[in-house]
Every structure is written in structure tokens, then in C-alpha cells.
């Protein structure tokens, strides 16, 4: 038999759960996602299929500034790279050669934001990110 408590539980609990879920996802800094999932995300945002060849070109050319992506990551990032200024070793960027790469969307976004700014003087578009990631995923053992 329904009473006033049954009603209020139903109407309070599920919205609360939904809100909690939203906050937990929105508030967390690390968000696990595979490289393929991240590529799908960028492709969807771009609205066009990713083009690995374009990604390779973007990665290995300079865009009006001192560095290209390859300046630190090497032209074929299946090997360790080196920071162009500090000399610090940088692990391979291609996911097939480094299991950590592109497994955390917040981390991916942070590095794209900063490094595209350094290389291109602006943010990379979702299409550019998709192209680069698609190319990196073609680099296999």
C-alpha cells in the first residue's frame, strides 16, 4: 500500500542518483577511455572521417613557430623522444608502443591544448586531433 514515504523515496532517490552520477563524472579529473574511444569522440565532434595521412603531415611540419610535434616526439613516435628545450626523455607516443598513451581523456586534452598552442599558436580542432590520433594508431609493431 502506497503511503507518503513511498512516494517521496521514489521522487527523491533517482534524481539524486542522477545528480550524483553527473557530478562524479564532471568532477573527476581522470577519465579512462581507450585510444579508439578517444578517436571516435574526436571524429564525432569533427563530423568527418579521420585522415591518418593528414595527421602525419600536421605532426611532422612546423606551423609558423619554432617547434613541430616531431621536435619533441620524433617524426615516427614509436621510440622515445626528447624535450627540445630540457632534454628530458619522453616515452613513445604511439599507443602500440606505450600502453599509457591516450587512456585518460583529461590528460589527452591537457596536452593537446598546451602543445598545439606551442606548435600552432592555437587549439587544435577536433578534426586535427582525430587525424593525428588516427595516424598514431596506424603505427604498429
Amino acid at each position, binding site marked *: 500500500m502506497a503511503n507518503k514515504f513511498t512516494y517521496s523515496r521514489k521522487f527523491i532517490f533517482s534524481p539524486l542518483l542522477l545528480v550524483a552520477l553527473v557530478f562524479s563524472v564532471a568532477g573527476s579529473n581522470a577519465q579512462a577511455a581507450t585510444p579508439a574511444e578517444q578517436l571516435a569522440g574526436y571524429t564525432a565532434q569533427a563530423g568527418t572521417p579521420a585522415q591518418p595521412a593528414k595527421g602525419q603531415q600536421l605532426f611532422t611540419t612546423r606551423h609558423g613557430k619554432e617547434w613541430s610535434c616531431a621536435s619533441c616526439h620524433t617524426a615516427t613516435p614509436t621510440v622515445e623522444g626528447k624535450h627540445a628545450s630540457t632534454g*628530458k626523455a619522453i616515452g613513445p607516443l604511439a599507443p602500440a608502443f606505450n600502453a599509457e598513451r591516450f587512456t585518460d581523456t583529461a590528460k589527452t586534452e591537457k596536452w593537446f*591544448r598546451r602543445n598545439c598552442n606551442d606548435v600552432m599558436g592555437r587549439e587544435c580542432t577536433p578534426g586535427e586531433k582525430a587525424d593525428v590520433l588516427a595516424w598514431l594508431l596506424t603505427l604498429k609493431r
Partner: protein
Amino acid sequence: MTHSFCKSIVFAGWLAACAVTANADSASPVVTPLPVYKQECAACHLAYPPGMLPAASWQRLMGSLNKHYGTDASLDKVVTQDIAGWLKANAGTYKRVSEEPAQDRITKSAWFLRKHRDGEVPADVWKRASVGSPANCAACHTNAAQGSFNERDIKIPK
């Protein structure tokens, strides 16, 4: 009995102080790096010991991460505040770290320049590919990543 007990306590205290400073450079204590400091800042370079710069220098650096010695090193607001707070709390207060060096660079501090002067470190060392720049402490200071700059551990690469 009381006298020798006091002496043992003093001796034990002195031994402990030696243990704490054994790894350190003669003037600065070793501070365990804040995990997020190491994670974010050591991505590109050594997690420089906070005691190597005065608080004012750290404050300026943390307020201009998007223009960090030629690159964009910006972080989200919460992380920036966490790191900035820790750096301020652990900044150098010893006399030799009271100056704010040019461009807030550790490598332009008077103490750094004196310790690495030509008579100590030949000028050509800085040009070697294995070294790269004075900011690359770990090239010669083999325990720099552990916060130790003890002279015994120095190996200048070819």
C-alpha cells in the same frame, strides 16, 4: 647518570640531524615532492626542489604557466593552486636563496653561478649534447631526481 643521559640524547639528536641532511646539499634540507608537483612538472624537466627559489619567484612562475620559458605549461585552476601553495610553503628561506634571480631562473642565482663557475665546471660542458643546458641537473647530478645534489654523486658525461 643524568649528565651522560643528556649527552646521549644530544648525540642521538645530532646523529638524526646528520641523517636528515646527509643526502642534501650543505644548506638545503630534502623535501619530499608533492605527488602532483612531480607528476605535472617533472613531465618536462626535473622536479626542482622548492627550496631553490624564494616564494616570490615561485609565485610569479605559477602565475604565468602559459608562458613558461617559451612554452605553454598551464594547468587547471585547482591543480595550479595546490602546487602554488606547496611551493610557497616550501620555498627557500636560507640567506643565499633570498635573492630573486633573473627571470626567476634557478640557474641564474648567484649561488648556482658560483658553484658551477668555469673553474669548477669547464664552460664547454654546457654545450655537450649529453648535458644540453644548465637546467638539466640530472645530466651530471645523478641523484637529482631524488632531491640529492651531493658532490659525491656527480658524474659529468662526455
